[in-house]
């Protein structure tokens, strides 16, 4: 289980501060009047449906949006088009998987500015890359092309690129999208471990029960900040309705606050006779037809 972080630090410990930020792309406004403070050592989940502005909020922290009004300050510096040095892991679906790069070459991109003036890598950087890949459990994949990996391994490659410069702040965009349950749990525990070593973690997710329910602090977004707090406080039918626009009952289970769904019946629901037929086809088979 992920630990609850001390979110109630004093006002001067905030390393990220958004003050009434309205931002977007060009003339389009995506986020409206957003105010948010994140303290050193926090582990925060940005939660919201697709298109709600989660990625945009991360980009705002990186100086990658058009600010219409308000302010973004990261480590006490107001961003004026400059980019703060933080570890950033983009959403995997934005990656060009046909690009000819190996795992090692992607990880070394994280040292593009610090690796020296020559095309080849310094041996200290190579050692560091190997060490991080080992730690993430993909040390033997360094020479593989990025397309030849599973979703969880691909996620780790881009995490390694972010970690190679030992950032104190890590921003991850949908790191658990499209991976299986075991990989997701491993990844969340890895992030938890980093968080325990002092790294502030901000990640986006649209998965309520699978991810957000396990985090210490979540921020619900839907073009604006709907609510923030521990999942047990934030997961209420009213807040979820305003975030997701759907009715969602709340379930308490083993200390977790989970979100249920309105029962729907979709598709044909046959009578006893048809069900009997289906049972016949579903019976375990043995012999030649078995795969």
């Amino acid at each position, binding site marked *: 289980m992920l630990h609850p972080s001390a979110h109630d630090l004093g006002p001067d410990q905030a390393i990220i501060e958004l003050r009434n930020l309205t931002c977007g792309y060009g003339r389009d406004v995506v986020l409206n009047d957003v105010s948010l403070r994140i303290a050193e050592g926090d582990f925060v989940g940005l939660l919201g449906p697709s298109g709600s502005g989660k990625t945009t909020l991360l980009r705002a922290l990186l100086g990658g949006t058009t600010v219409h009004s308000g302010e973004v300050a990261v480590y006490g510096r107001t961003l004026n088009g400059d980019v703060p040095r933080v570890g*950033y892991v*983009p959403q995997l679906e934005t990656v060009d998987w046909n690009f000819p790069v*190996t795992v090692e070459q992607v990880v070394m991109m*994280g040292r593009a500015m610090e690796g020296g003036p020559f095309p080849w890598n310094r041996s200290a950087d190579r050692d560091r890359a190997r060490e991080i890949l080992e730690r993430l459990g993909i040390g033997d994949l360094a020479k593989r092309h990025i397309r030849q990996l599973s979703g969880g391994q691909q996620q780790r490659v881009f995490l390694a690129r972010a970690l190679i410069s030992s950032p104190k702040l890590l921003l991850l965009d949908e790191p658990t999208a499209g991976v299986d349950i075991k990989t997701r749990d491993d990844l969340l525990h890895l992030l938890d471990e980093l968080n325990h070593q002092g790294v502030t973690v901000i990640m986006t997710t649209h998965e309520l029960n699978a991810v957000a329910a396990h985090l210490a602090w979540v921020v619900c977004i839907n073009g604006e900040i709907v609510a923030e707090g521990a999942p047990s406080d934030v997961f209420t039918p009213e807040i979820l309705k305003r975030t997701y626009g759907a009715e969602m009952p709340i379930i308490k289970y083993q200390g977790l606050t989970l979100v249920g769904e309105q029962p729907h019946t979709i598709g044909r629901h046959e009578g006893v006779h048809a069900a009997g037929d289906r049972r016949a086809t579903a019976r375990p088979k043995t012999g030649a037809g078995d795969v």
Partner: protein
Amino acid sequence: MFEPFQYEFFVRGLIAATMVGGLCGLLGVYIVLRRMSYIGHGLSHAIFGGAVVSFVMSFNFYIGASIWGFASALLINATTRRRPTIGADAAIGIITTASFALGVALISRTSTFTRSFDAALFGNILAVDNRDLYAIAAVAGFTIIAVFFSYRQLLFTTFDPDVARYYGVPTGWIDTLFSLILAAVVVVSLQVMGATLIAAAIVVPPIVARLLTDSFHRMVAISTGLGAFCGLAGIWISYFIDVSSGASIVLLATAFFGAAMLYASVRDRLANAVPTAARG
């Protein structure tokens, strides 16, 4: 077989084509990977317009065409970046063909042409003189130095320009530098390749290289080497079969493309025949 080497013009043309082929192959890697293949085509046509304009105004060809080309490249880059709803490639098509048409219009208006523009359209190594050779060498030297010292930033910017910026890479400067190099390379290539064939010299070698490797470093090496080889061998062949230099270089590169396609499909079939246990 080595008979043409006794002619000075042939040796000059050979050196020029080798350098130009290598340069186009090198820059082509970045252009193809950014899916901007149409840029080579557009830019060479735009620069043709610039070449004619500087000739008509009795302005130095290299300076006039380079300024024209760099302006076009910046304009193209800005258009690509903005991603307008009309589509960047359409906008580029308009900008560059208009420039080309301007060149054609000027040629047809001016009756006192002493210089053939066939070379600028289709390439002609006979017309390469020492001054051209020095210009190509200067551009090659600058390109190699620039790519060498910005290699990592250029790779990251090509792979993912948005994220590269978040990692502190000055992607705006990298793009501008690249546009500058590209314009210079197209200008010095004009005489050897011709405006109509530069696009192929830029696109074919990197695609062949991509078919042969999954590693970026190797792709750069193979594409540059193949471009240079096609330049060299293409000129040599053109001497014996008497076709224009640009056409012979491009046809040779295309033959390599066919061979690489064949090789890649055989390789993939063999790889698929064996269960891919290595995946995982």
